[in-house]
């Protein structure tokens, strides 16, 4: 059996084990009427039997699947003819490649050297034997475990506790996968970034003002130290994010105040979902909007006022990004404002405060920490946003504070550095990881601060 069919078969076997265990537990106490004498529910005994039957056997299968290629290759290498064994290591890798292709059926055996064809035949033979052995082993394990557990079912067997421990372990494994993946990603970024900093000094990268990674491709120009100065990228990111926040914070905050404090419930029930729809628009659509509508609009507007606006201006990207972030700010601010207890508003009204005084001086004051936290989260989104800027912000690494010029951002450069064929150890490619690391650290810090502030604020009114 191939491993995948084997796994399905084992699942079926476990199902049988479940039924057996369940029936056995009932039989032990003399049928459904004796169920109160059982320590656990019949289903728990069934699950316990099924788990014992299935898990060890599955584990064996998975381990074999993971190691089988290495084991088989090692076995074959030991009995290869001398002319193959005397190959240089590069050629041996090629030989193995051919071998694998033949085994997988990508290349007919007739197209490769007889030695390779013979080795492939041997590989397939060994694999067949191994599969047979594996099938036998897995079934034996499963059936033996099933029978042993079934035989040990007594009324006082604490099946529920065991089952719950196993399930808890599985849940733990799942969360471990998520955490380990994250750690793995971080480590790989850190590792590649360190390699980059081995080539380009960190201070040149962090404080250099000239960014032109293309030059580094030609070997004779590597080391022109100005090439990887990331300051223009940081500045561009900041400029666009600042424009975005200038749009998103006032509009988002004011619409939240309107929705939470002024809007009749009918208006609220229409406007709030609409704002949340804005949040669901894919960012590529916003980018599209920026390129085809906002950019040209700004250009014509600029021309009519005698200003020259670049086709891909920071302003266009920032404006559209701001619009994208509005619902984010407004829905967070709305949550914070509605979380302010009514008793505070009553207190202000009872002192003779007007509605706007109450909102300005009491409600917003109380919601401020939460709103600040929300804005920080929004900034970290703006900094990490990629699609809009890739489409609308351009590639020119200008160091400028003029929003009408084209700038580029960290995320845009990461994309351009990695798109297309790359050597994975050129500084140009590695620079992407260094940029990624900076981006990661900045957004992480922002998020941690923001979450801390928001949590702190939530506690205050519990």
């Amino acid at each position: 059996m191939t491993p995948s069919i084997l796994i399905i078969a084992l699942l079926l076997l476990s199902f049988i084990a479940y039924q057996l265990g369940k029936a056995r537990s009932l039989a032990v106490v003399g049928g459904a009427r004796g169920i109160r004498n059982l320590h656990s529910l019949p289903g728990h005994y069934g699950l316990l039997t099924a788990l014992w039957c299935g898990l060890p056997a599955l584990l064996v299968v998975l381990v074999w699947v993971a190691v089988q290629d290495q084991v088989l290759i090692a076995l074959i290498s030991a009995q290869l003819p001398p002319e193959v064994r005397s190959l240089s290591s590069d050629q041996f890798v090629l030989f193995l490649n051919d071998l694998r292709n033949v085994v997988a059926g990508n290349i007919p055996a007739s197209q490769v050297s007889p030695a390779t064809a013979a080795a492939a035949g041997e590989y397939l033979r060994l694999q067949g034997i191994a599969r047979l052995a594996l099938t036998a082993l897995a079934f034996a394990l499963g059936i033996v475990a099933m029978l042993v557990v079934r035989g040990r079912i007594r009324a006082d067997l604490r099946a529920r506790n065991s089952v719950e421990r196993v399930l808890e372990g599985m849940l733990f494994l799942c969360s471990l996968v998520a955490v380990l993946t994250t750690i793995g990603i971080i480590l790989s970024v850190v590792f590649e970034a360190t390699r980059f900093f081995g080539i380009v000094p960190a201070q040149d990268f962090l404080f250099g003002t000239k960014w032109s990674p293309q030059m580094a491709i030609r070997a004779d120009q590597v080391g022109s130290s100005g090439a990887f100065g990331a300051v223009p990228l940081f500045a561009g990111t900041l400029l666009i994010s600042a424009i975005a926040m200038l749009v998103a914070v006032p509009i988002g905050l004011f619409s939240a105040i309107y929705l939470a404090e002024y809007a009749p419930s009918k208006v609220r029930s229409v406007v709030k979902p609409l704002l949340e729809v804005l949040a669901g628009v894919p960012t590529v659509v916003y980018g599209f909007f920026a390129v085809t509508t906002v950019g040209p609009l700004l250009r014509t507007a600029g021309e009519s006022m005698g200003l020259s606006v670049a086709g891909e201006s920071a302003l266009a990207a920032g404006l559209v990004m701001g619009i994208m972030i509005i619902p984010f700010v407004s829905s967070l601010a709305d949550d914070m404002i509605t979380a302010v207890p009514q008793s505070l508003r009553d207190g202000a009204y009872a002192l003779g405060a007007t509605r706007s005084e109450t909102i300005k001086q009491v409600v917003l004051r109380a919601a401020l920490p939460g709103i600040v936290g929300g804005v920080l989260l929004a900034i970290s989104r703006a900094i990490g946003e990629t699609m809009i800027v890739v489409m609308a912000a351009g590639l020119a690494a200008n160091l400028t504070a003029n929003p009408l010029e084209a700038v580029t951002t960290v995320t845009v450069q990461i994309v351009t550095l990695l798109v297309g064929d790359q050597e994975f150890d050129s500084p140009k490619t590695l620079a992407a990881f260094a940029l990624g690391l900076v981006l990661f650290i900045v957004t992480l810090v922002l998020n941690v601060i923001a979450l801390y502030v928001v949590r702190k604020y939530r506690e205050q009114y519990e």
Partner: protein
Amino acid sequence: MNDAAKTTIGTITVAEPVFSCRNVDVYYGDKHAIKNVNIDIGRKQVLAMIGPSGCGKSTFLRCLNRMNDTIVGARVEGAITLDGQDIHDKRQDVVQLRARVGMVFQKPNPFPKSIYENVAYGPRIHGLAANRGELDEIVNQSLRRAGLWEEVKDRLNQPGTSLSGGQQQRLCIARTIAVNPEVILMDEPCSALDPIATARIEDLIDELRESYAICIVTHSMQQAARVSQRTAYFHLGDLVEVGDTNLIFTNPQAKLTEDYITGRFG
């Protein structure tokens, strides 16, 4: 509801009332929460309002400073006069009214500001102080009268929420008297406090009575007996009986009042 309960037993009038309420009805949508209530509220004395939960004590209290205006669907009918002027009159500014009729709530609700700013808030929005010195003086006086000055004089810049529950409630009282009202409304001001904090507030109410008219809603019969001179008993939106606290507690006229104060329901 039988007809007998609809006429209030006892003396509803007082000499020179600060508030005079006639035929007051309150509706929440279709719900008739206050039914034809007539009562005067006297100067420099404490009126206690008692009655089972949901009988409309808070609703009636909120009529007096028009806090019911802030509740969607609430409707108040009838005549309520403050010093002879109708508080529902078009010329009556609700901001002015609330400056004259202060309110203390069940749960202490200090603003998320410093102790000083909590007390200074009312005077600021009503422009009661011409300069910082005057404001300091108002804050100082209000905290003293609320019996809180000694405890907070060294920490005026700390947040009001950093105080204990009882201190917070006295801060709210200080905040209310800082705008120099004529009447102070209190809605179960001690129900969230421990007995010691409660005793302090009761002492404070007794002192404040010398300058203000006070209406207090309370669930504690002992508290009503201790702090008030007049008591009003509400039942299902009706004002059943009103009179001298001594008389109400020793010799209630209405059967409902007697049942309530002897603890037969509540």
